[in-house]
């Protein structure tokens, strides 16, 4: 049911953990739905120098988190903002249709962490104007 890539990221997830002095922390999803993702970002000069995640969820939720962290690590905030759920899913060689919401969650977790960063530092990030981290990703598909 899952691609080899998903399984590989599930088996060996990258960037699991916490960053105690994170510059931005975001959490999306809720336990009722069976998925929660929490992202920690370390940001220096507009560059995401470190990222860690913790996820409660199914195989594709863990793989999506792992892939998303890989995709934003070392990137600028603007570049990170362009990491869409589709890009995450594609990098994983696809997800089953019923699991697409996991990639949505991953995208949102990054954005939630960036939002947190922007609010703490009182800076504006293009594209986060209408972002609501509490929106239910299950409605996206």
């Amino acid at each position, binding site marked *: 049911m899952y691609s080899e890539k998903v399984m590989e990221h599930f088996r060996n997830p990258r960037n699991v953990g916490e960053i105690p002095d994170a510059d931005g922390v975001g959490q999306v999803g809720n336990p*009722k739905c069976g998925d929660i993702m929490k992202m920690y970002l370390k940001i220096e000069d507009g560059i995401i120098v470190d990222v860690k995640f*913790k996820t*409660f969820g199914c195989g594709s939720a863990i793989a999506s988190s792992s892939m998303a962290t890989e995709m934003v690590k070392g990137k600028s905030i603007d570049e990170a903002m362009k990491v869409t759920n589709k890009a995450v899913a594609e990098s994983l060689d696809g997800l089953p249709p019923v699991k697409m919401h996991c990639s949505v969650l991953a995208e949102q977790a990054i954005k939630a962490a960036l939002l947190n960063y922007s609010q703490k530092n009182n800076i504006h990030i293009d594209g986060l104007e209408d972002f609501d981290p509490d929106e239910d990703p299950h409605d996206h598909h």
Partner: protein
Amino acid sequence: MKNYIYMDNSATTPVKKEVLDEMLPYFSEKYGNPSSIYSLGGKSKNAVENARDRVAKVLGAKSNEIFFTAGGSESDNWAIKGIAYANKNKGNHIITTKIEHHGVLHTCQYLERQGFKVTYLDVDKYGMIDIDELRESITDETILITIMFANNEIGTIQPIKEIGQIAKEKNIYFHTDAVQAIGHVKINVDELNIDLLSLSAHKFYGPKGIGALYIRQGVKIHSLIEGGAQERNRRAGTENVPGIVGLDKAIELAYENIDEHNEKLIKLRERLIKKVFEKISHVRLNGHPEKRLPGNVSFCFEFIEGESLLLSLDMEGIAGSSGSACTSGSLDPSHVLLAIGLPHEIAHGSLRLSLGDFNTEEEVDYVVDKLVEIVQRLREMSPLYEKVKGEK
């Protein structure tokens, strides 16, 4: 597939060698159509009738009360739709429970869309119905009570005798989905006042795609599959002779030494439960502590999600199942776990390990060891676990 540990015997079982051996001649040698007049057909006919006799004997029924079907789901649909349509002049009310298999639940929901009324009984935290609630839910319109014998997810065995007694008193048909019970529980349809009973061979080391429906003589029921005169005009279709022969042998083996077999399973089950509780914290056992299927173990591990647990077990060569309907495209956790009152986030962390005749103590111990590692690993990854660790 050496060293593969299969603990999903409630989902399906391997066909036992003795069973397959009995089936084999009926594919390419004794392949006659049982309805045929010539001798080759007669051999098939005999095989089918011998199987019918055996199933009848196991259930304490008469041979002409046993009808072969393509499995548990067909039997459930036939029983419920067949009774509903044939008795709608008497009433339009059906009573069932919230924890039935989808074969019953979705059939009842279908009938609701066709204008029938259905009461879905609650269950307690062990998955048991309340006999008084059942009694109170009966109306003048009630034509059918359909309550499963034993639950496929949490293993709880219902008070079937009491239910049958009530149904009999009130003159209401009683169907039980015994798909999980057959092979593990001794059942006598007369003692238990069962009018219809569904069973499926692949749950007791028989082949997939063959089952039976017991229909008490005199029960008014429509057919689900009309056509030829097979199964005394009540279930059309050329008989799946090898399948029926397999069902015959499998049910023979299952009841031959059922006590021993159950004793062995219960011992394994209790070992598994005891060890898990010793070694893993924040875990619950779902279902009734005693009134449960001999091979059924159902846990909820807090702070983790069932699917990632299953995938991790599979990576270690262990086959288990989750209560959650992940693969079915639904995002909700199992309706059974919600019905016994578990909050969503805990219901998501369910794991069913269903033991079978081929499991050993060594396997149980190995599985527990792996579970300890996997649960630990997934919890370390879980943002829900952080808090608990913090709180400690």
